[in-house]
């Protein structure tokens, strides 16, 4: 039996902001403390075992009315992949017009999530 480690999380489920403590040994949760409701317990479990995040950034777009196009992942990804996804998108170039929701990168970095356009970008009128 290995030693029990304690991790703490700030619950974001409601304004109460409970300080959650998760005891775990060998990656298995032994005990969760500090929650005031079921949502807190569920949040602690998710944050401890598999924290997931939405990712938003912008990519370069040419020929549009703006130089940057906002993009996001189609579903939350593992928290630890956020930086790598944003970095990978630095080299992406798209050309206007773009439709909101268009898939720009499928299965980004093997996460299973697509990178999609978060707005439509119409072509800039010719000068």
């Amino acid at each position: 039996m290995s030693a029990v480690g304690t991790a703490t999380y700030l619950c974001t489920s409601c304004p109460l902001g409970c300080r959650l403590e998760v005891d775990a040994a060998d990656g298995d949760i032994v005990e969760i403390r500090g929650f005031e409701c079921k949502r807190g317990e569920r949040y602690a479990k998710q944050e401890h075992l598999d924290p997931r995040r939405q990712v938003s950034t912008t990519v370069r777009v040419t020929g549009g009315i703006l130089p940057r196009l906002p993009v996001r992942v189609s579903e939350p990804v593992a928290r630890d992949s956020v930086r790598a996804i944003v970095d990978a998108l630095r080299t992406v170039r798209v050309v206007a017009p773009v439709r909101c929701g268009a898939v720009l990168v499928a299965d980004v970095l093997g996460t299973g999530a697509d990178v999609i356009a978060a707005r439509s970008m119409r072509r800039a009128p010719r000068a």
Partner: protein
Amino acid sequence: MITGDAQHLASSYDTVVVGAGPAGLAAALGARETGAERVLVVDREREAGGILLQCIHSGFGLHYFAEEITGPEYAERALEQVLEHEVDVLTDAFVMDIDSGAGSSSRLALMSPSLGITTVHTETAVLAMGARERTRGALALPGARPAGIFTAGLAQKMVNLHGYLPGRRAVILGSGDIGLIMARRLTLEGVEVAGVFELMPYAGGLGRNVVQCLDDFDIPLHLSTTVVDIAGRDRVERVTVAPVDAHLVPQRDRAWTIPCDTLLLSVGLIPENELSRTLGVRLDPLTGGPVVTSQMETSLPGIFAGGNVVHINDLADWVSEESLIAGRSAGRRVAGTRLPDDNIRIVPGDNVASVVPHSISSERAHTLYFRVREPIREDAVIRLGSLHQRKVRALVPAEMASIKAAPRFLEDFHGDVLRVDAVPASRAAAS
């Protein structure tokens, strides 16, 4: 749709909405739903959508569109809705003046590159100008005046719309949501964020943003700490920060200095009411916005208001819902439907900073939105006079709270003023 193009602009409308952010777009939709046929939305930016266009992060739409989306997606959907309802949207145009003078119609003076200066008449108007950020001047921040000091929203616009970074190493003063979001955004773009400093002993923004924008990236949040000096000749070179005592007075003997080239300010929003003042609409000093009835009508008949121009909301979704009411009321006025009269004034009581709307009718159900002054991090009670109360887990200034007022609570009430209180449950039981 009209975009900075005068060709289809009519000379008179049933409803003109000032501002095409979430408030204005929802108000236009609401007005069309209830009877206004000719509706115009005017915005000074090149595109409709307001500040949503630069809020590329997720967290919008859960309530209004029943789906979590980003700001630009929210703006696009809201715009599509109004265009489907054949609303005219005029961008790149500035409302210089509204004159609600005599009679039942108002006159707007518009200015735009394609129109020059032109006049539009309207039967009703909805004020939806939103808010702007507090600046260094509002805080009276001491120190030098070099380049490199930005409001968080301005930095957000630079980064997300135009692709410029404001600097290389940033300090953020204030822990409002935009500041927290920008701490993450700048970090992801390679700017080093030395820390977020907050005068109050609690964060100004939502807990979710503290966790996902700061904790995830190991950005330190220093509570009860503020900036006491800014140094730099042409560009910011360093800022000095110091902890504050219980009276918010900086402890200069405990100050320290942080080398940086950028200072972002995320220290609150101010409802943008220059136009409302010109009109002569009554303003509430507590919210900084117009005094509104339960139908979101201002003190001037036929002039309605919704969203951050009335009071600062924490979600665009609430802005849309409230402005939908404002728009629907304007549409009803156009259709000749009498709006219900309010007979009870609502005032902020214990630990309540402000409440909207400012009046309600005892005949109808209403939701009152308010913000607490001090956080209550234990079971709390929201009271509507002595008529009705609701228990909640906690209340913090960063999150708007609400309580319902329904005719059944008001049956035996014969007064004309009701207070909204928000106190710890332990204290409520004792009193």
